[in-house]
């Protein structure tokens, strides 16, 4: 990867430019201390936005004409599916940053993003199945989106399994970063091919897109929920990453000082 980093270094951050913050990000200690300050505010924001969206969506949004109240699971299903996919890119980008700039912290972010993403993908499939029963009369359909979500779950599981298969952290990091990048190249191909496969075999009975446009009264709480889930995702990612930092840096002086308490004060 050295040729890549040389090529990138021509037009990406270097020491002399205004990219100090980028290099500071490479320090797990800096991130740990700083994220500790951000975390309460982020958690508060996530809690408030999620509570607003949930109450608005579940209690005040109008009932769907055809699906009745069962459509309300959309307020969980759609944000979770959004983040399941976005989480893969966050994981892959963190892995790429680690491979290119050899940044310890970004590997920790990548490792933390994998289980969160896998759980979100599972939740997306699960809420979809729960929604499918009253709407389509069946829990599972071999539909293009459902199938690609299932493949996404497999991709996540592969990265997770590879990460834990290595004894040394470093090899596990780099290997799963490469796998995540290979997966990133493949995701659009997989999505397109599954889409194409579905249109070829399309069963006539089921229509996924029930209404092309949503009523604003239903749509606004959905936007709030998506925003709330993004905040929640960041909180979860920070918590996982902080735990990982402590685990990997447990031999360093600053972690010992932090955990055992400063003797001076």
């Amino acid at each position, binding site marked *: *990867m050295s040729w890549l980093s040389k090529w990138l270094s021509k037009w990406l951050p270097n020491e002399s430019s205004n990219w100090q913050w980028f290099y500071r990000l490479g320090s797990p200690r800096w991130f740990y201390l700083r994220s500790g300050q951000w975390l309460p505010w982020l958690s508060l924001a996530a809690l408030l936005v999620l509570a607003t969206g949930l109450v608005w969506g579940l209690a005040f949004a109008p009932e769907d004409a055809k699906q009745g109240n069962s459509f309300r699971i959309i307020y969980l299903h759609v944000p979770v599916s959004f983040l399941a996919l976005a989480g893969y890119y966050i994981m892959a980008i963190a892995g790429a940053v680690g*491979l290119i700039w050899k940044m310890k912290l970004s590997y920790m972010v990548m490792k933390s993003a994998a289980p969160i993403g896998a759980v979100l993908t599972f939740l997306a499939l699960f809420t979809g199945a729960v929604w499918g029963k009253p709407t389509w009369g069946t829990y599972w359909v071999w539909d293009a989106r459902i199938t690609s979500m299932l*493949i996404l779950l*497999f*991709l996540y*599981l*592969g990265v997770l*399994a*590879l990460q834990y*298969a*290595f*004894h*040394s952290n470093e*090899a596990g990091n*780099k*290997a799963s970063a*490469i*796998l995540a*990048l*290979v*997966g990133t*190249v*493949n995701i659009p*191909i*997989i999505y*397109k*091919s*599954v889409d*194409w*496969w579905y249109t*070829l075999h399309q069963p006539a009975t089921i229509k996924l897109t029930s209404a092309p446009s949503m009523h604003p009264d239903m749509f606004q709480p959905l936007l709030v929920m998506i925003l709330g889930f993004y905040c929640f995702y960041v909180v979860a990612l920070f918590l996982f990453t902080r735990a990982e930092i402590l685990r990997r840096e447990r031999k360093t002086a600053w972690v010992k000082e932090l955990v055992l308490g400063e003797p001076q004060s």
Partner: protein
Amino acid sequence: MSSPAARKINSGFTAWLRRDLLLAYRRRGEVASPVVFFIMVSTLIPLGLTPEAAQLEKVAAGMIWIMALLATLLSVDGLFSSDYQDGSLEQMLITPQLLPLPILGKVTAHWLTTGLPLTLVSPLLGLMLSLPDAGYLPLICSLALGTACLSLVGAVGAALTVSLRKGGLLLSLLVMPLYMPVIIFGTATVNSAVDGLNWLPPLAILGALFAASVALCPLAAAGALRVTASN
């Protein structure tokens, strides 16, 4: 391509191709096992599903493709592992040539000893599973291209898991999702021919997948080997 530099670059490809083919020739029994597996599993299909020709011909194309995928998956595990165990993989890593070229040579040898025999045997299985007549040529063409994709993508997985003791199972977990587009377009090629449609478009997409994996997979496998083989 007659300049000394070009010849030197080529030698990395041909030397490893020749070496792996020679090794395969010395161990002919091992080379035959994916093909034998391929034929044996096809016996399970009439036993497990139905021996009726009318029903078999519906699933024949998909089943042959799935079996070819599994046979490739079984054999791709050994692509780097025996070299890793006897130390010749390290020799490959320190050669002056660009690493992707020896890898491409090895993958080509792998395809010549697995994908090509599977492709050549497939009409026989088509006959046994009563594949309609229109499907034979598309089956051969799609398998020839598709198994090459499978070998290339499998090489990335094999490179990632080469140093792990139980790498084989993990390898299939890693690689299986990446195989989905290949199997979709592979079976689509055969099925559209059987249905009397134009089967060249899905075959062309398979060719595009092959071109992309020839360009990218050796690079990814090289990066992966540098990480895993040193541990």
